[in-house]
Structure formats: C-alpha cells, structure tokens
C-alpha cells in the first residue's frame, strides 16, 4: 500500500512562549522545533502500516528550509522518502496549504499510483486550523474521519476510532481515504542511530511553491493567560510518601 503523511514544523513547547515585539510571530531564539505531536503519531502509524502491509510511505511538509530536519526525523523512524514544499518562513493559511499539498498528491499519484491513505494531524500544534485534511478530502472526493485515536487497515477498508464523551465512535471507510489523527494514537518510537544515518541518504524532493495571496489577515498574536509552570513540593524523603500516594490517587494512577 501507499501512504502519505503530512507534518508541520512547530516550536517545541515547554517554556513560556514569548512573542516578537511586533506581535506577529513567536520569538524562536531559544526554542527547538519538532513535528507537531499529532503528526508524530501519524508518522509512526504510517511506518507501522507499511511494516505490516508492505508498500511505500512518503512524508510531506510545507515549511521553511529548516523543516528538512523534521522530514529527516520522520525518515529516521522508517518513512521511505520526503517531499519538502519550501517556504520563506511565512505562515500559509489552511486553504493555501491544502492547495499546495493537493498539487503534490495529484502529481505523485499520476506518476506512482494512488495513495491508499492520506494521514494528517487533527490540527497543528501552533496555528490549530483543523482544516487541511478536510479540505484535501473534499477536493479529492475521498471519505475522511477526523480526530482518531485508532486506525486499523483491513482488506481495502480503514477502521477509525474517534474518542467521544463516554466512549468511542467507530467508522469504517473504504480506501482510498483521508484520516486525521490525534496524539495517543500510538506511542511513537525513538529513532535509532542506524535509522538516523539511513535518513540522511533517503530521497528528499524539494519544491518551491508560490504562496497565494492570503485570504486571512493576521492582526496580531496574543499569548493566552496560562498557568505557567507550577510545581508543588510534596515533601522530602520518606515523609513525602503519603502525599505522593494521595496525589497519585487523585489523578487516578493508583
């Protein structure tokens, strides 16, 4: 089977996010970058599906030159090849992003045959547009299920599990299909060193699409009121044990 998984390079969170002075971007001087967590699971799922069923996996991103790092990361854990839509670092809106990706999918399918599965993150970790996968499914006229926590491919169909209040909704879609997935879908593996080394040699195709005139105008960014890092010291040494147990019970771990 053939699978395409799309990823986005996003700033690593963990520290307090600071905006640039003009409030148009995130101050990234101290930040590392990563694949959006939902998409990390998408990559892992693609690798597992190809490991189980054979075929080819392709990772795609639209992002700045540095986003090659994320493509190599994906290839390090087993994706076969990569397509990089290189931008100048400006954010593309979901419509423009979907349009550019669509073009790649159509060309690739024309040359190599249909993708059985197009995997997207449910939403990106930074802009959270929730749209790209849906727009692409619509454009291609393929079925889509979103917000998935389990994906199983079996005999020309894909079984999709969506978490809802009080349980799970299950959909079975015929392939080819589009799915958007969420963190928790699986536990992504760490890349091995040989995997990293192989990733350096795997094929990566770069393209430079032209950014269409944005139809959304960004006024400014605002950092939401957050709770920040909060640590409560429960005690020291053995004396802390009862409180630790209490907290573990509270959060339902024990």
């Amino acid at each position, binding site marked *: 089977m053939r699978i395409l998984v799309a990823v986005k390079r996003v700033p690593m969170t963990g520290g*307090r996010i600071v905006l640039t002075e003009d409030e148009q971007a995130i101050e990234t001087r*101290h930040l*590392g*970058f990563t694949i959006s967590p939902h998409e990390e699971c998408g990559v892992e799922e693609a690798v597992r599906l190809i490991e189980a069923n054979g075929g080819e996996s392709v990772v795609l991103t639209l992002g700045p030159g540095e986003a090659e790092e994320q493509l190599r*990361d994906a290839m390090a854990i087993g994706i076969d090849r990569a397509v990089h839509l290189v931008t100048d670092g400006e954010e593309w809106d979901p419509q423009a992003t979907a349009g550019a990706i669509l073009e790649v999918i159509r060309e690739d399918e024309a040359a190599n045959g249909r993708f059985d599965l197009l995997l997207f993150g449910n939403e990106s970790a930074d802009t959270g547009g929730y749209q790209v996968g849906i727009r692409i499914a619509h454009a291609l006229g393929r079925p889509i299920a979103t917000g998935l926590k389990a994906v199983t491919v079996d005999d020309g169909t894909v079984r999709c599990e969506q978490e809802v209040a009080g349980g799970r909704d299950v959909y079975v879609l015929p392939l080819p299909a589009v799915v958007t997935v969420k963190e928790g879908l699986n536990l992504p*593996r760490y890349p*091995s*060193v*040989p995997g990293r080394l192989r990733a350096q040699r795997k094929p990566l195709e770069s393209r430079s699409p032209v950014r269409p005139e944005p139809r959304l105008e960004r006024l400014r960014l605002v950092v939401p009121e957050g709770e920040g890092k909060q*640590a409560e010291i429960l005690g020291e040494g053995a004396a802390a044990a009862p409180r630790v147990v209490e907290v573990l019970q509270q959060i339902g771990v024990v």
Partner: protein
Amino acid sequence: MSTNAPAAARAVVIGCGIVGSSVAYHLTRLGWADVVLLDKGPLPNPGGSTGHASNFIFLVDHSKEMTQLTLESVRQYREMDVFTECGGIEVARTEERMEELRRRMASAKSWGIEPVSLLTPAEIKELVPFVDESILLGGFHTPGVGVVDSLRAGTIMRERAVDAGALQVLPNTEVQGMGVERGRIRTVETSRGTIEAETVVVACGVWSPLIARMAGAHIPLTPMVHQMIDVGPVPRFERSPRAIEFPIVRDMDVFMYERQDGTSLEIGSYAHRSIVHDPEEIPSIEQAALSPTEFPFTQADFDPQMVDALDLMPEIVGDESVGVKYAINGLISLTPDGMPILGETPEVRGLWSAAAVWVKEGPGVGKSIAEWMVHGESHIDLHSSDVARFHDHQKTRAHVKARTTEAFPKTYGIIHPAEQWSSDRGLRYSPMRERERELGAVFYEVAGWERPHWYEANAPLVERYGVKPRKAEWDARWWSPIINAEHLAMREHAGLFDLSAFAIFDVQGPGALDALQRSVLAQMDVAVGRVVYTPVLAPGGGFRSDLTIMRLGDDEFRIVTGGAHGMADRKLFSDQLPDDGSATLVDVTTAWTTIGLWGPRARDILSTVTSDDVSHAGFPFGTCRVIEIGSQLVLASRISYVGDLGWELYVPIEQGARLWDVVWEAGQPHGLTACGIGVYGTTGRLEKSYRAFAAELESEYTVVEAGMTRPTVKEQDFVGREAHLRHREEEPAAILCTLTVDDHTSRSGVERFPLGREPITLRDGTPLTDAKGRRSYVTSAGAGPSLGRYILMAYLPPEQAVEGSTELAVEYMDERYPVTVDVVGSAPIFDPENTRIRS
C-alpha cells in the same frame, strides 16, 4: 516566596550548583557562621550546567593543578557517598594517540594516581565487551574513574551547613545589582531585598560574566555547546545490577565519550564545530523548554559523530531497537586558556570568582576557595586558575571567543606542552618588531606579546656549533636547534634579547618601602641603586611569585616580573598598599621596553656606546643606574637570568628600536647574536639552575625546599614570615635538585628528550614520594648546550638528594632513562662560582 533576605552576611554565595553549594559549605566548615547561598532557580536543580552534566570523573590530567582539584573533589564525593567507581578507559585509534596515552601514564605517576595501566585491544574488550576492539590500538585504564550524583552532593552540602546553623539558602532569588564602594563590595541587591555583604562569591557558571559585570569585574568565560545524546534501552544493560557497571570509554581520537547510565548509553561529543553563545543569550528559566542551559539539539552537528560511535560500539549503537531518547546542546563554561577562574577579582576587593568549574573539580574548588577566603591561601596552588591572571585584552569578548573557539576542538586533543595559540595573535609587539622580522624571528606569545623564541637568521650557527637536531617529532615540535646555537653564541660572545614582555610596576610614595617590605621576603631597605631578587611568599610560606625590585629612590621602587604572571603579581602588591594613599602602584609595563645584553663581550660592547663607567668596580653586579647611550638615557640593571656578564637596559618604549640598533651595530665586531626566549627562559636559565615561578616555585614548596634559604630573615614583617621561620627550623621534605640525563637512547634507538612534568623514579620505575606525600617529577627540562648535557630540575626526597647519585631515572613515553643528580640545592651546574656574572 515571601522569605526575605537577611540584612547582612559574612559571605553571599551566588549560585546553587555544585560549585556554589560547595563554597558555601566549606566556608561554614572553616568557621564562618553567617553565610547566605542564593540562586535565581529552584532547588535542587537550579537550571545551570550542574543539572545536565554527564557527571563522570577521569582523574588524570597533564595539569597538576587540575588533577589535585579533581582528586580532592573525588575524596569529598566519596565521603558523601555519591561516587560510583566504574573505571574509565581512554582508547586510541591511532599511534599518535598511543603516544599521548603513554604520556598520560607519566602524568599519572607524577601526580600519584594509581593504579593505571595501558591495555591491549583484547583487554579493553574484556572490560567493555560491546566495543569493536579491531579498530583500537590500545587504551589507558584508570580503575578509579567514576560517576557522581552532583545534584545530590550539592543538596548534602547545603543541608549540612544549614543543619549547622551557619547557612541560609534562598532559591528563586535573583541578583539584581551589587553595591561597590571605594573598590570594595558592600551589598548584593536581590529580589528578596538587599544584603550587606563582607564578601561575595560568584559561582554562577555560564552566567558568571553577567553577575560579575554588575560589580564592574570581569570573569572572562563563555558558554559553549557540548552535545550529548542518550540512547536506549540497551538490552545488555537491562541486566545490570547498578546504574553503571562498565568502564566509561573516552574515544579520544574522535573526541567522544560513551558511558552507561542505567539502561541507556550516554554519548557525548567534543567533535562538533565550536558553538559559542553569549551569556545574554541564555533564556530565562520560564522561557526554557528544558532548563536554561539545555539548548535545543542541532542534529546536523552531531551526524558525523554517530558514525564514529557506531564504529566503536556497533552492538549497542547499531541496534535498531535502541532509540535516541534525549539529545541536547548542553552549555558548558570555557575560558581563553582552559583553566577555571578562581579567586578574588582584581577589580573589586571582597568579590570572588568560582567560575568555569566542571563537576569533576567542583567540591575541590569549593574547599580551595573557602580556604583562600578564610586563611588567605588554598592548600592547592591555584596560580593557573587565578582570576587575577588576565591581562586587559584577555578579558574581552573577542579574545574569549577566539581562544575558546580554537580550544573547544582540542578538549580531547593532543596538546604539546609548548603549543602556541593561532587565534587572536599579533596584539602586542615590541618596538624592535621590524628588526626581529628581518632576522626571521619565530614569535611565541605570552600575555599578548609576540616574543622572538629564536631567529631563523641564526640557522648557520647550528652547523658552526654542531648542534644536533632532535629526531623524535614530538620532542622537536615547537623547538629548534637554533635555540642551542644562539645559546652557545651568547656564551662565546654575547647575546641581545628582547624582553619587552616584562610587566613593570612603579611603587612610589612615603609608604612605598613599608608596602614592599610587607610584600616580599627580601630586605627592601637597601641602598638606592640596588637591585633585589626576591621571592614573594604565600601566608603558608610557599611561593606566590619571584621577581626583581630596583630601588630607584628613597620612596621609589620598580618591580619587574614576567609577563605571564604579571597581572597576578600586580594584585599581590596592590593588596599590600596602605589605605591612606601614602604609596601608589602604577603599571608602567607599556612605558618601558627592556633589552638584555649578556655574554663575555657584553662589557666590551656596552663600553663602545657609553662613556659611563661600566667596569666591574664602577658598575657592580646587583646594581642599577642611568647611563647615557648616545642621546638616550638608559636605566641599566646589572643582573642576569642567563648566567653571564651583562645588563638589562630600560628605555621608554618609543626609543627601544633605536637602542637595539645602537647596541646591535656596536656588537657586530664582537660577535653579538640576537637570542630568543628559548635561551632566556630555558637553556640559559637551566644551566644556572635558576628557578622559574610556576615550574619550580609553587605555593606547595617552601623556600628551604627550593634551596633558596638566605642566611638571615629580615626583622620586618612580611606575608609568610611566620611560616618561613618555622620552615627554617624543620628538615625539608624535599630538596630541589638539578639532574642531567645520562642516556637518551630509547628502545627503538631514537634519542628522546623529556619536556617536563615526567616522573623521576628509581631505576626500576619505583616512584619517589616525599614525607608530605608529593611525588618527584621534572619541574623544568631543557638542553644545557654549554655543558653538553640535558638538564632536568626536580624536588627529591632528602635520601635521594645526593650529589653524584646514579640511582634515578626519568620516565618518558613509558620508558626510563638514567639520570645523575648533579646539584642538590641552588648552586648552578654551569659556572658554579659565578665567575662569568661577576667578572
């Protein structure tokens, strides 16, 4: 969060990493009862480099100072029960590295680290079964290597001091400013209030430059990236009974290390490009994703290193199931000369630096700094780490950046003891630069000065004097047979030396004599026109410096000292100046240039250019006065560090070239030869058994041991007097001796020449240890061209310090060469009656 800072403290230590916690603890141990320790971060991991350190400790370093700090640290870590011994192996992939490992063997023996051994590849495999030994030539094994829990150690030290009621710890407390009055620290302003402080210690790791700057002081270090990844889980380690079971491997040739950490393997690298940051670039604790000193990993920098790790440990690193779980660009502190930055800052009294210290030296540094603060000196000689050592240009960002960028790739490099820096050169030139370049000077740098080490124009002298080249590349590196030829030309005729790099300080005023009397061992109340050579002692009676002082007037003295230690010396004297302003010290280093003229023809040469009386009777040894040379007034000082008749000639720096020309021309009929520092600092000095600071003279040796006892001790008080008087009553534990090598031939038939710091042993290799537990090692080594022998100096225990003894050997490159003890004490081996100097 509401705790207020106390209003006053004897000491405020800033930084709760391993260094600050240790300094604070040891201050309380030494009796200081109100110490405050604060950090802007939380505890137990405030977010500095301690928190992400790999925490392993290799014991052997070529630097005695570093080794001693490390050994003291290990002793403390063991006592706190946070040290896990696992052994460590430095492995060699190249023959060049094997040579370096043989030198490690020598350093281990010199500093008393046992056991150590060289391993075959098969023996390495036995200890570390997951290496591919087929790519290795051998290894250097130190079983005493281990890993520590440095955060736990910090916690233990803080708890002990707090429990003793002597320490208050304030985490989450930011320093916002420091108050300085009349050059002395007064207050520390924090986010919890202002503390009046008698002393302040900056132990802030990579942030130290910023904190010191608040008080107007300099701590010239830079944060530099060290990359580290953690791979696992390693199937082999899942059965390990403890966190580290296998020896730590340092893969020296590719600048990497690998060590077990539980079920993981930690892989660290010093092989990537130098990634320097400014302290200002470090994010706040809130902004940092991990900790402020754990920067995002830059994969591309590490890619080549993965291949090297894979080659050495294919079983683990090549295992597809073993993942890269953690990867950081960790910040570490680097300094322009690779040594820590310790001691009271020269800019601000009471403001101390304990910075650029790694985990392996932390507790040792803490103890040493505390001793220095409380007793006036540390039991470990810290001259190479002294914060006062930096010259102004060495405090600049550009210099720090240039030198650390050059040094980073050499972290695991093979460094020749005479190796020169290539970055940021050409800063300070003497006025004779053009003449020297015409003579093909090969410049070595000291304190920014470019000094001729030898002159290529003298190459023909090599043949004339029959100087043999050295066949072993290492021994010949950073050396030239021209040095020996220049030496012989000086001894036959005369030599002209550029000594512009001297540091020169004028001490003047009605209080000048008293200030100098307090500072130095020798009697300074001498006749005007006398030149006095004197040691400067530490409170414990060991050496802090040695230098010469000219009395130019009743209230006017001129101190002349080596450039390398000039700034530390300046602080020694400045510290003794009276508060009432009755004496001042002015640094006149760049006001004067110094030209040395020595050799049997020196007087003939000088008398052709001056009408002043320069006869032996008219201008005796050990005196100085102004003479006329052409249209120049020249301060001539009749002393010598090369053991020949002659003078140091001082003129204003802008006249130096003219003086050089005049003397040079006058000297030509007399065979005058330009001589480099190779003669001045090594061959000339060693033939006369003259001691050098930082080689023979260190604070752990006494005047008596150095063989420099004078008949009487002056009545006036001076630093170290009490201890010195005591030493004179005791039997010395070791005596400084001059030895010569009897046979240089190695097993391979090539003649070898030790370069210094090698162990002196019995002929069977048994090391010599004196009653104070110090090993005998070569303090200086170099040719004695006029003797036709190769000279070594070493402190020997009294039973071995026997003139004519042929029981000893010097160990070099894992081979032993027989030596003879020629002189016990200070008598020169060449011209023992000093007839040349006093002719």
